[in-house]
């Protein structure tokens, strides 16, 4: 029976606003109560055009597949052979993205190193310098060169297998970093030359160079200091991928790391994460176009990151022209981040498994994004490393499965021609046809 008021008039169904949703209203109430914006970890949570909007067509009469269990499908990748005496040789094209000691615990960094090494790939330092645990357990370690230069020193620089100059990251193009006081333990403070327990800020611009002309000289300096031995990557946020890739290459980068807005951060304003930057799907084709226009595609490697979760994502990124991908959030989940087994503790923090993103507060029940000794002890780095290795192996097998189905004997042989899009948006961004058509928005020669 329809609800009625006291006069017997039927009541309309309560209707929530599509503009003022419960989420929006809670944001407003929080802002009104605190006077400060919301800070959180992770990447964009909003629904975005993504690799899920693409499909591989697979083989048919016109395309021959490879035998799944008999014919090889190679996965190796070489990064940085353009200038470096010792380029990075990886067994699989899935690397571990930069995440700082400080944001992550020491055991978590060790687990990342163990897992990556067991899978034949590299891991990356972050905004806090290089730890012995990480170096010791990473067969290939990329050393990030960030605006803050926390812990930066030439001894560690020379221990690195590659250097990654970080200009930006997908979660916050144009933004600096922050690490709240509860995570500035004595060890973190010492590595960063800061007083313990303060809220630490990281600059958004490098202190000693601005613009591509300076960057070229900075790269020269780093090559001179390291004797031209190791590759130098430049990491940029997905903002203006065509121009940023062009300028990175012209500055002398051996590899470009391109990070979309689904890529995570340790801590940034929610408004920044959700409203600045481009989706990963939208940034790859302009970057590849830039490399092709310069005649540098496959000479300067393109490493794509930002919400890569599966072998299907890996295969799609590579089909669109990437040489490799990097994972961050997915690697943390493999270690145990947001695991439902900690649900009661997530609930106590006012959240639920899968939604926990207050990584900056240092109370991570999984013991990963924390410096609390009791919580840190929950992560066994050996077991964590094993889980990460398993995950990386599965992603690789999945990508190989798809590549064989497309008749490709190396993941690098996947190509845009193997793909179709399910939506107009994805077709336009990926520049592959809408499924069932030979057309995508913006296709050259198309008239409107």
């Amino acid at each position, binding site marked *: 029976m329809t609800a009625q008021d006291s006069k017997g008039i039927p009541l309309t169904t309560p209707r929530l606003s599509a503009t003022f949703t419960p989420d929006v209203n809670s944001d407003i109430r929080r802002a009104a109560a*605190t*006077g*400060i914006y919301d800070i959180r970890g992770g990447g964009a949570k909003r629904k975005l055009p993504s690799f899920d909007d693409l499909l591989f067509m697979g083989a048919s009469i016109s395309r021959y597949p490879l035998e799944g269990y008999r014919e090889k499908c190679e996965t190796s990748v070489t990064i940085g052979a353009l200038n470096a005496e010792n380029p990075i040789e990886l067994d699989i094209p899935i690397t571990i993205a930069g995440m700082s000691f400080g944001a992550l615990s020491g055991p978590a960094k060790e687990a990342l190193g163990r897992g990556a090494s067991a899978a034949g790939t590299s891991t990356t330092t972050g905004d806090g310098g290089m730890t012995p645990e990480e170096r010791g357990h990473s067969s290939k370690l990329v050393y990030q060169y960030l605006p*803050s*230069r926390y812990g*930066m*020193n*030439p001894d560690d*620089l020379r221990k690195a297998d590659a250097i990654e100059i970080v200009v930006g990251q997908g979660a916050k193009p144009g933004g600096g970093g922050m690490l*709240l*006081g509860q995570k500035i333990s004595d060890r973190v403070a010492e590595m*960063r*030359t*800061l*007083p313990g327990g*303060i*809220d630490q*800020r990281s*600059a958004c611009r490098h*202190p*000693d*160079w601005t613009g591509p002309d*300076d960057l070229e*000289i*900075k790269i*020269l*300096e780093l090559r*001179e*200091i*390291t*004797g*031209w031995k190791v590759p130098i990557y430049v990491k940029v946020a997905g903002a203006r991928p065509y121009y940023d890739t062009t300028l990175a290459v012209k500055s002398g980068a051996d590899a470009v790391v391109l990070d979309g807005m689904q890529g995570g951060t340790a801590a940034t304003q929610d408004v920044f994460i959700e409203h600045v930057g481009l989706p990963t799907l939208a940034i790859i084709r302009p970057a590849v176009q830039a490399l092709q226009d310069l005649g540098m595609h496959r000479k300067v490697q393109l490493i794509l990151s930002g919400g890569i979760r599966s072998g299907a994502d890996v295969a799609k990124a590579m089909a669109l022209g990437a040489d490799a991908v990097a994972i961050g959030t997915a690697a943390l989940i493999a270690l145990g981040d947001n695991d439902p087994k900690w649900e009661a503790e997530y609930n106590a923090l006012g959240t639920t498994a899968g939604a926990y993103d207050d990584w900056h507060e240092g109370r991570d029940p999984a013991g990963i994004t924390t410096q609390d000794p009791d919580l840190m002890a929950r992560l066994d780095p050996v077991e964590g490393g094993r889980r990460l290795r398993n995950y990386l192996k599965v992603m690789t097998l999945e990508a190989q499965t798809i590549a064989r189905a497309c008749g490709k004997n190396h993941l690098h042989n996947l190509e845009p021609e193997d793909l179709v899009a399910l939506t107009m948006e994805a077709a336009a961004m990926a520049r592959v046809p809408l499924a069932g058509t030979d057309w995508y928005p913006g296709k050259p020669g198309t008239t409107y």
Partner: protein
Amino acid sequence: MQTLDLQDVGLRTVNATLHAQSEQTNQTAWEVTNPRGAHAIACGLDAPIEVSVKGSTGYYCGGMNQQATIHIEGSAGPGTGENIMSGKIVIEGDASQYLGATGHGGLIVVKGNASSRCGISMKGVDIVVQGNIGHMSAFMGQSGNLVVCGDAGDALGDSCYEARFFVRGKVKSLGADCVQKEMRPEHLELLTSLLEAAGIDADPTEFTRYGSARTLYHFDVDNAGAY
């Protein structure tokens, strides 16, 4: 004295030769001739050697220096001595912007003036400038000492942490959270030793000390306008 003519042998040979010097090297005296403003000269050194650069240098001369003493007999380009860890760099002329950026240790002496962002994000380096320094110097300075015998430009020590600043002349303006501080005996003693190490004859009592008020150490909505 070993001589490396940069125009003759090229930058790679100059740096590789200097890098090849070990802790125990007997070849401790080097000169680099014809620098002609080249970038990255004598960067990444890690031996107790003395290197004289006979002219002006471009970007990043002496970058990430360890142990070595580098004497620039001219003016120095941007980022000279960036991320210096130890040792000493002496610049006879003027220094461009970002001098000693993020330096973790060692000493940099400028006989002339230093441009903007001198000592930006300094992390333990000591910098002594005989002349003036430009705007935004020691921005986010974390540790170490910046001594200025002349004047300082706008926004000195903006958002600084625990770095100390000693200025003899005028400061055009102080940056966010940077304040004048009392010059106690231990500071006079420190300043005396810094001036002595730099070989500069100046009276420490004529200097004023500045440093962090530490009000921005923890996020507070009432400070939002200062960030």
